[in-house]
C-alpha cells in the first residue's frame, strides 16, 4: 500500500514485544481481524462440503453380494458383515422371522456408533445415546438419531443370503 509510516512501530517489534503484558494482550482490532479470518475459514469449509458432494457422490452398491449361508443365522439373530470393496462400511444382517431378513448399515446416523439388534424388543439399539430404530424399516423410534438407518435389500436363494442396493420402489413404501 502506501509508504511506511515512520511513526508506526515496525511489525517485527509489535510481533515480538519486550514486555510480557504487550505480548499476551489481544486488542480488539486483532480480535476483529481474527473474526474475519474465522469467517473466511467457515466459508471455505462450507465450500469443501460442496466440492466433496460434487466430486465424490455416494455411489450405490453394485450387484449382489453373497454374505452368509442362511442356516448360520437363526431367527432372531444378527450377523455382522462388510462388503468387500473400497469403503469399509459395517452392516448387520438380521433374521427377523422365518424368511424375513433385513440388512442395515451398522453406523448409527447420530454419531456413527455401532448399533445392535435387540432380540427381546425386536428393535435396533444404539447404546451410545440410547437411540432406537425399527428393526423392520430402520426408522428412528426414539432418541437423537436424525435419519433412519440406510438399508440394503436382502435376497435368499438356495440357502444363501445375498444383499444389494435398496431399490427405489421399496424406499417409497
Amino acid at each position, binding site marked *: 500500500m502506501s509508504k511506511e509510516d515512520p*511513526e508506526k512501530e515496525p511489525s517485527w517489534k509489535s510481533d515480538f514485544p519486550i514486555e510480557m503484558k504487550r505480548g499476551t494482550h489481544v486488542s480488539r482490532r486483532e480480535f*476483529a481481524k481474527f473474526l*474475519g479470518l474465522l*469467517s473466511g475459514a467457515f*466459508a471455505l469449509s*462450507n*465450500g469443501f*462440503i*460442496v466440492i466433496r458432494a460434487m466430486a465424490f457422490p455416494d455411489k450405490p452398491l453394485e450387484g449382489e453380494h453373497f454374505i452368509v449361508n442362511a442356516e448360520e443365522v437363526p431367527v432372531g439373530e444378527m450377523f455382522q458383515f462388510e462388503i468387500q470393496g473400497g469403503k469399509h462400511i459395517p452392516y448387520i444382517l438380521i433374521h427377523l422371522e422365518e424368511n424375513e431378513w433385513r440388512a442395515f448399515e451398522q453406523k448409527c446416523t447420530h454419531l456413527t456408533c455401532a448399533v445392535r439388534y435387540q432380540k427381546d424388543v425386536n428393535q435396533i439399539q444404539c447404546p451410545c445415546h440410547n437411540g432406537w430404530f425399527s428393526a423392520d424399516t430402520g426408522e428412528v423410534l426414539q432418541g437423537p438419531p*436424525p435419519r433412519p438407518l440406510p438399508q440394503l435389500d436382502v435376497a435368499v436363494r438356495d440357502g444363501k443370503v445375498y444383499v444389494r442396493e435398496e431399490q427405489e420402489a421399496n424406499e417409497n413404501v
Partner: protein
Amino acid sequence: MSNFRKSQNEAHPNKTNTIMTGIIILQILFVSIQIWFLFGALNNALEGNFYFALTTFVGSALMAVASIWVLRYLPEPLRKKPARKEKPKVSPSRNP
C-alpha cells in the same frame, strides 16, 4: 497542528469504541450464522441434499466477504502522543 481527524477524536472520544463494538458484534453475528449453515450443510449433505450445501456455501461466502470487508472500517488506534511533526498529516484512507 490539529487536523480534522484529531479534533473529531477529541470531540467524540466514544466514537472509536462504538464503531469497534459494532464491527465485532456484526462479525460475531456472521460467524454464528456461518456455524449454523455449516452444521446444516453437513447434516443435509449426508442425506444427499446437494442444493442445501450449495446455498449455504453461497451464503457463507457472502458473509465471509462481508465480515472481512467491515475490517476496512476498523478505526485506527489513537496515537498516544500527538505527532510532533508540524506538517499536517493526512492519513491515506478512510477519512471523509
